[in-house]
């Protein structure tokens, strides 16, 4: 094999060397190098391929370590902040609603008393009633108006929580892509775990496009289902 492939070349090289024929000598050397080239190139390609894969794997793994160390805990903190913000805004709104209700009730109650006086048909007590009622009604309505303006402002949380949730969605997308690349690189066949549909388990609110199975879209569906069961 060695003799057959390289015999002629080595002979030519040796002959040129003995004859001190520089041109023939280097031509023979070039010929040998040329013969070795494809194998060398193949080897280099294999080595660089392996190196590239190792680098890629290293970069994916360090990205994953970054996710685990910083970004996931950060996302958790951000989502907790969203819960706290929505909680605060809801309580603020409920405070204002609870404070406005009695004011509206008082205006309605007093207005009913004025109407009763009016029905009685005596001008003197009506005049006194109105003098008491109108300034109080104005003050109560102004307070209700201010409370409503604050209810409006309390809804500003949606903008802020929306931005935070979007940033977490972006993180989840990145994590999904990185895990996808890792799976492709490993060439592993991933067994997809199927989520059991244990009816005793709580799944949380229905999310369009995510929640699977038969869902009661509204209260009437629930009522129909239960009456079908004899309830």
């Amino acid at each position: 094999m060695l003799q057959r492939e390289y015999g002629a070349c080595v002979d030519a090289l040796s002959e040129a060397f003995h004859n001190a024929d520089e041109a023939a000598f280097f031509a023979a050397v070039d010929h040998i190098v040329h013969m070795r080239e494809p194998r060398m190139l193949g080897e280099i390609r294999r080595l660089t391929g392996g190196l590239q894969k190792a680098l890629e794997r290293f970069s994916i793994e360090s990205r994953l370590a970054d996710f685990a160390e910083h970004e996931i805990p950060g996302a958790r903190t951000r989502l907790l902040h969203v819960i706290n913000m929505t909680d605060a805004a809801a309580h603020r709104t409920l405070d204002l609603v609870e404070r406005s209700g009695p004011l509206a009730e008082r205006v309605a109650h007093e207005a009913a008393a004025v109407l009763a006086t009016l029905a009685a048909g005596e001008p003197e007590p009506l005049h006194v009633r109105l003098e008491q009622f109108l300034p109080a009604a104005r003050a109560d309505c102004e307070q209700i108006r201010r409370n409503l303006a604050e209810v409006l402002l309390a809804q500003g949380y949606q903008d802020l929580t929306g931005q935070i949730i979007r940033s977490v969605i972006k993180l989840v997308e990145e994590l999904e892509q990185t895990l996808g690349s890792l799976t492709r690189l490993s060439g592993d066949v991933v067994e997809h775990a199927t989520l059991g549909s244990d009816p005793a388990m709580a799944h949380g609110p229905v999310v369009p496009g995510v929640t699977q199975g038969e869902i009661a879209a509204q209260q009437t569906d629930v009522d129909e289902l239960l009456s079908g069961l004899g309830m």
Partner: protein
Amino acid sequence: MSKDCKFLVVDDFSTMRRIVKNLLHDLGYPNVREADDGETALPLLRAEDFDCLITDWNMPGMPGLDLIKAVRADARLAKLPVLMLTAEAKREQIIEAAQAGVNGYIIKPFTAETLKEKLDKILGTAAK
């Protein structure tokens, strides 16, 4: 059932408890107590006399379904009217809740009318 009947509202979100409490006030039921999951609700139910339990399903600690099962297994509480107020809307879950012994099932988001309608129904039934 008289308007002074005593309610226990169980939900892990304080805002939802407050909303339900406000609606009950508006319906003329001022006597309302609160608990944030089944584990805190159960001792209250055993220690005091309640006329109606309104519970969420998805709660950390003891979920609503387990609470209902515990209530039905307790001889003193077995007949307590129970209304489930939850975001869980899968058909098999509603059936599961019915089998566990709920008297009414409302899915969130809900309206004041739905709450009134279900309460009238289950408290009326209980009064018989």
